Each structure stands twice: as C-alpha cells, then as structure tokens.
C-alpha cells in the first residue's frame, strides 16, 4: 500500500470528532418520537385493511414520491423534495379534501393534483405545474411524475414563486410539528412560505407520518416494489433536449471561395429523431434536423470499391435540382468496402449503459436490452463483451465475457434496472479502462455508449470530457453512441462524444431501428475501414458561379485542415455509405443569386468542361498518415436515377423542416411526389416510411 493511501487512512480514521452530546441526545429523542408515532399509528389503525408486518399500503405511494424524485432533474430536485411536496400539496388541497371527510388511515382519496393546484391558486405563476398527482388526505401522500416541479403547486398562495419566499423560520430539530400543527397551518395559508422554503425543504419534517414514511422509501434498493410506472408515463415532462446544429451553409461564390472542405459523417441519428417527432404529431425542432444524417439514413446502390484499391469508392453525379431549374445537384456518393464477415477481426465490445432514473421509460432501457439482445446473435464466439453501467455510481456489471457465453451476457442485461442520477464521466472512464484491459493484438475494441444523453452528474467540465475522449482516441478504442428515448435527449453531447471518440451516433426509437443499426449494419457500426475521412471539393469558377453544401454544418473543416493529419474527421465503417449533396449554380445561369462584381477580377475564361475537382483524404484504421484520392468532376449533367432523386427529396424535406429559403415555391407536395416516384425496390420499406412521414409533416405544417 502506498504511503499516501496510508496517510489518507490515518487521516480518515482520526477525522471524526467525538459526537456532540447534545446533538446526540436530541437525535435519539427525535428518533424515539418517530418510532412511537409509527408504531402508535400502526396500532390505532390496525383494523384498517392494511397488512401489518409489511409496510403500510400507502408506502407504495411514497415509493412513487421517492422514484419521482429520483427522476427529477437536479434542478427540479432543488425545488421540491418529497417532504415539501407532501406538505405543500396537503396544504393547498386540505380544504377540499376535508370536505370529503377523509380520515387519517382511511383509503386515500385520489385527487388530480394539477387542476386542484390551479383551482386553489388562480393566477399562480404555475411554472411547469403540470405535476398531476395523486393526493391523499392527511397524512398527505403525493405521487407525481418525473420532472414535475412541485414548487408551483404549493407556492402560489404565498403570492410569489417559492424561490423568492421569505426565509424559513423552521429549524430542522424543531420542524417535527405534529399532524395537528400541519392542519393548523393548512387553514392558515400565510404559514406556507415558511413551510415551502427551507434550504430546498430538505430538512423540513412537518408532517411526521408522511415524513417518516417518505424516509422509509428513501432507502435505495429497498423501496422498489409497489411502484406503478404507468402512473408516471404519460404526463408531459419539461423538455430538456439539446441538439447540435449550426446555421445552414450559405451560398458561396466559386470565384471568391472555390474550395469547400468537410468531414465525412456516417451518423444517422437525426432521421429517427425527426421521425419520432413527426410520429408524435409535432414538427421536429429545427436544430434536430441535420440534413446529411437524414440523407445518409437510406441505403443507396453505389458501386462497390474495387479489390486492392482504397477501401471505399467515391462516385459523383450531376443532375437537375428538383426545386430550382437553374441549378444542378452534385452528389458525391461514397461506398465503403464490405469485407467478408468471416474474415473480420474479433471484437472487444464494452456496453456502457446509462441506468439512470430517466432511462426507465419503455423506449429506453427496456428497448436497449432488446436491442443488445438482437445484436448478441450477430457476434461470434471469440468476440468478448463487458458491461459497465453508470447511474449515480459507475460499475462493472459484467466482466469481459466471451460472446459464446450468451447466457451470462443476457443475464447481466436482464438484471439492469434504472435508478439514480447519471455519473457519465466516471462511467466513461471506467469503460475505457475495461476496454484497455481487454485489448489484444488484432482485436477491434469499441465502446457502445447507450444513453438518453442525460449526463447530469460528474461532468464538471464538458471541455475536459471531450479532451479525455479525444485523448483516448489515440489508444485505438472507438466510441459509438446510441441514443434512446426522448425528453432529455442530449443530442449535442452525444454528437460531441461520438465525433471526438472516433465513432458514430445513432438514435434508436424502435426495435426495427435497432435491427437496422445493430444487426443489418452491425459490421459497419463496429468495423472501421477508413479513419479521418475528409472531403474537399475545389470548384472551377469557369464552370460554377455559386455553390452550396446541403447539410454537414456541424462537420465543416477549414481549408488547411484537409492536409493536416492531426485534425480529426469522421470514420467510414465496413459497408457504410455516405452521401453529400451540393447545389451548384452553373456559370451564366439565371438562377445566380449574387451579382458579379464590377471591380473584382472577372473569372478567367478557362476550361469549363470540369465542374470541379474532388479530393478525399483518409487513413487506414490506426494509421497516422493519410492517403489521398482524387477525381475530376465532369460538368455535363446526367439523368437522375431513383437513388439521386430520392436523396434530393430527403434533402428537400430536411430543408423544408429547417430552412426552406433556397427552395422557392417547392413544397411538401413536390417533395412527396418526388420521393414517391423514386422509391426503387426498397426491400425494407425505409423509403415508403419516409414518404408517409413527409405526408405527415405536410399536414402538420399547414
């Protein structure tokens, strides 16, 4: 043992001072009172239908409170602890309830909390007061939803939001007022601010019965049963989603800025997010729309690379723009090689699974388990799997286990349960440590981070986290991020993590989506064939007046970064496809948006047979130096095939959902017609689904 550890041990051994005798006596006295209350109450109501040796039935409701609190974001937790919720709502509702003559110990009356709160406090600053709750008569028992801000329910009677309520007079030790006291307070609303704001209310213990029962639910790990998640599910929670995006790329003038540089992006997360929004009857938030990810979601029939050459093949085509007769669309399609799956190297997979409370929804942890189970079927016996979870505390749930031992892996997956807040950083650190421990020559190591993106604990400095991941990139471990569920999807963090960790971000909202990402495209998702792939297009000012890259806003690179091998860029996995679309205005086209400069240098007359020159830089996986692939782009437009027209329709859809200013009068009807006519053979129905979603979006935007 190291000296420092010894020193820490000695320090900690001697650290605690002797307990203060008065504090000790006070605490013991309070404990005995608490004990008596519980057991006296239990005797008095022994006749009530209540199984005695077990906790009172109503403890189940309090379990709900506890779970609700564990679901609250820290911000909301600040506002309301259980005891405050209990007292606040019982105060607000007591007069109503008393009319119903609900006696203590009787079966609790159920009251819809939100309307009641509004009714008793009209004109309240009902900040997110959507907390519909089940309220029982005193002792009040509250069950509410994740994310509910209970402050608003109780505070309004004070005439001000709770945060500004006067400083409390109640002291922890003296706060244990009797039930009668709390009733008196209920009839005197003026007492409320005092009850509402005491250090976030945490130490308040005004209604003893409720308080102690709440506490009984507080022992994590003991209180799980008796909780009905469906009571929590359908209620609106405050939306804390964050999306990564930039302003749409502007039109560039080829004579002034002939070079366009960006990083490859094989993410597809944006499409499922857009889909889940539309399916829920809402237009997606603008920032959630990343056109390149929507276009890349769909499979296209690009020619496969030739054996012996680069591991991918780029093909370019030029065709008329559907929304503008005066411009052309330049499509760059990249097809990654698909190595024979028998020849693939064995895998080390670390599932890093977010088991925080917010993951409890059916479309999060349960879907995640099903998804990973689907994927296990694709692994080979020599592949190895480890599972690390993080929620409040990070932990290694499954030691590195050969995929052949599927029972053990499935067992570990089954045992996962959601609860606690999210210690994302510690989880990531441990996952990298595990992956490093599994590392061996010839194996591909990858961390699959599954989360709803709620990294709320443990990240003191997002910049440092990115730096940590970027540093780990050098170790050859890939990081992929799988997003689950909506509500607090932190798309921005997910993007940042995946981009910095040499990986992809995908969003999984349904089991078929899991099938697509984790089974059909497993090899692509897990086996990189080219790292740091950068695209640079130099436009020929003689042939091109203006150009505009559609999408890739978050992937822009500086012109000089193209040749700098130290600048990170996107990866291409086995069989991946990447599509980039430029809208190009040919020289002399009436569709040109900018006027030529009177005093600027006129474009040279030069050869206009080439539209531009395409350069791709890539590294073999793990290599430090890049290789260059170049190809000229012919200026003669061709016929648009199904794939080209469908990609254009999706790009149009993306623009309609984000920034339609370049589309003129082209709208949803045209997009639908274009996509419907370009479905091709569509074996899995992805394109048909897209047409359906366009129709939905068209209706929603009217």
């Amino acid at each position, binding site marked *: 043992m190291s000296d420092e550890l010894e020193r820490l041990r000695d320090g900690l051994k001697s650290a605690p001072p002797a307990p203060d005798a008065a504090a000790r006596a006070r605490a013991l006295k309070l404990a005995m009172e608490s004990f008596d209350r519980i057991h006296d109450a239990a005797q008095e109501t022994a006749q009530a239908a209540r199984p005695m040796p077990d906790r009172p039935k109503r403890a189940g409701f309090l379990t709900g409170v506890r779970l609700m609190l564990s679901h609250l974001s*820290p911000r909301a937790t600040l506002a309301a602890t259980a005891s405050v919720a209990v007292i606040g709502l019982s105060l607000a509702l007591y007069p109503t309830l008393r009319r119903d003559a609900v006696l203590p110990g009787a079966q609790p009356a159920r009251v819809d909390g939100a309307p009641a709160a509004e009714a008793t406090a009209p004109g309240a600053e009902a900040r997110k007061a959507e907390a519909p709750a089940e309220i029982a008569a005193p002792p009040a028992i509250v069950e509410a939803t994740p994310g509910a801000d209970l402050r608003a329910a109780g505070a309004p009677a004070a005439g001000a939001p709770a945060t500004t309520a006067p400083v409390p007079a109640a002291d922890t030790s003296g706060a244990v007022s009797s039930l009668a006291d709390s009733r008196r307070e209920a009839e005197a609303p003026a007492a409320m601010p005092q009850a509402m704001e005491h250090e976030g209310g945490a130490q308040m213990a005004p209604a003893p019965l409720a308080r102690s029962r709440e506490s009984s639910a507080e022992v994590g790990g003991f209180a799980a049963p008796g909780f009905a998640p469906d009571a929590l599910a359908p209620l609106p929670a405050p939306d804390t989603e964050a999306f990564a995006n930039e302003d749409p790329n502007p039109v560039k003038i080829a004579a002034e800025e002939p070079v366009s540089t960006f990083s490859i992006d094989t993410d597809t997360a944006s499409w499922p997010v857009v889909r889940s929004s539309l399916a829920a009857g809402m237009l997606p938030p603008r920032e959630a729309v990343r056109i390149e990810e929507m276009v890349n979601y769909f499979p296209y029939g690009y020619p496969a690379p030739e054996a012996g050459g680069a591991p991918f093949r780029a093909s370019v085509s030029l065709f008329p723009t559907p929304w503008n007769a005066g411009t052309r669309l330049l499509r760059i399609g990249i097809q990654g090689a698909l190595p024979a799956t028998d020849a693939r190297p064995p895998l080390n997979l670390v599932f890093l699974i977010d088991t925080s409370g917010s993951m409890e929804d059916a479309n999060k942890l349960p879907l995640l388990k099903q998804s990973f189970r689907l994927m296990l079927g694709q692994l080979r016996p020599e592949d190895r799997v480890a599972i690390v979870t993080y929620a409040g505390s990070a932990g290694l749930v499954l030691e590195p286990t050969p995929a052949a031992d599927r029972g053990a892996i499935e067992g570990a997956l089954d045992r996962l349960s959601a609860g606690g*807040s999210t*210690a994302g950083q510690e989880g990531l650190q441990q996952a990298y440590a595990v992956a490093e421990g599994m590392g061996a020559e010839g194996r591909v190591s990858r961390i699959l981070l599954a989360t709803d993106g709620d990294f709320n604990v443990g990240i003191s400095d997002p910049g440092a986290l990115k730096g940590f991941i970027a540093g780990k990139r050098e170790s050859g471990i890939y990081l992929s991020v799988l997003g689950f569920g909506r509500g607090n999807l932190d798309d921005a963090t997910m993007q940042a993590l995946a981009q910095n960790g040499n990986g992809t971000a995908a969003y999984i909202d349904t089991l078929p989506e899991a099938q697509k990402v984790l089974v059909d495209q497993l090899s692509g998702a897990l086996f990189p064939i080219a790292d740091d792939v950068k695209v640079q297009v130099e436009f020929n000012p003689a042939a091109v007046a203006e150009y505009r890259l559609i999408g890739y806003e978050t992937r822009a690179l500086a012109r000089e970064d193209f040749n700098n091998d130290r600048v990170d860029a996107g990866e291409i996995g086995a069989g991946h496809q990447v599509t980039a679309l430029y809208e190009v205005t040919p020289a002399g086209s009436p569709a040109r948006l900018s006027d030529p400069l009177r005093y600027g240098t006129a474009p040279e007359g030069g050869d206009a047979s080439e539209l531009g020159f395409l350069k791709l830089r890539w590294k073999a996986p793990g290599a430090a130096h890049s290789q260059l692939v170049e190809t000229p782009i012919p200026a003669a437009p061709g016929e648009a095939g199904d794939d080209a027209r469908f990609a254009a329709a999706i790009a149009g859809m993306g623009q309609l959902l984000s920034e339609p200013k370049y589309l003129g009068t082209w709208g949803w009807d045209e997009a639908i017609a274009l996509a419907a006519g370009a479905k091709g053979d569509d074996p899995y129905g992805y394109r048909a689904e897209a047409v359906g979603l366009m129709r939905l979006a068209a209706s929603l935007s009217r």
Partner: protein
Amino acid sequence: MRMQTPDEALASAAATGDRDAFAALLGRHYDRIFALAFRLTGSRAEAEDLTQDICLALPAKLGSWRGEARFTTWLYRVTVNAAHDRRRRAATRSRAADGWGDWEVNRRAGIAEEAAAQDWLVATMARLSPELRDTVALTLGEELSQREAAEVLGISEGTVAWRMSEVKKRLRALARAEGML
C-alpha cells in the same frame, strides 16, 4: 441482557415495535453513524444533520429490514444513501454546500484551524469525486473490506477495486504536485 443481543435480533424486534430494542440499537450505533457521516461529508454540522435525519427515518426504514444482510452493512447503506441524497440536494443549491468542498473553501479563506495533517486530509478529500470519497470513507475510514464496501455501495467488488486504484493514482498525482511546490 440487551447488551449481548446481536444487532440483527434487536433490529428485527425493533421492526415489529419493540421500543426498548430500538433504543438499545440506536444507542449502540449512533456514534458509528455519526463517524461515517462525518467521513462522508467532512463537516461536523453536516454530519450532525445527516445523522439526525437518519435517526428520524430509521424507525420507518426498519420496516424494510429483512435480516438479509448484517445490520451494520444495512446501516452503512442507509447512511451512504442518505448522504447521497443530501449531496444531490445540496449540489442543486446555488451555493456548493458540499462539506469537503466547503472546507476547502474555508481553508483557502484562512479560516481553517485544523492541524497541518488535517489540512492535507481536507485538501485531498476535496479533490476526490464524491464516489471516490464514499469509497475511501468505507474502505479506509471504516476499514471495510472491498467486498463489504461493494455490498454497502450496491456496486461490484471490481468497481471498488477500480475506484481504489483511481484513488491511488490521484494521491500519487497530488504527491507529485506537492513535491513540485
């Protein structure tokens, strides 16, 4: 006679309403809870409040006592969870009310009256993440084995081992930093 009764038996009796058993149990363990609370929080006031919260809650919590673990393990878990909840609430307040963190602030303000050794402890604990603090409080402060600490924290033994190696790493880094001053 009560003095010889094992904790587990007292707990079971207390859970079914035996007042004397509960009093004996709490009297026996108050100091232990307080010591752990102090090691977890690093502040006397915080530790007293936390211990009192636990005392208040204990009668109800005993309702979930099933005698499946050693009583001390169960009690440690209750304490760690209560500290965790308290910390989570504190973390959301605008001021950082984290005890060890407060201490660090106070120390910097020159208010610390502790001896130099204590100062080192405070500075060191303040630099560990809450998870690592909990872990060292149990393994070093309470001298639990890694297996016992894992049981209390509800994590795997491997995770405790990993955390302790993290602690060692940070201590070494701290020592290096001190050496450079």
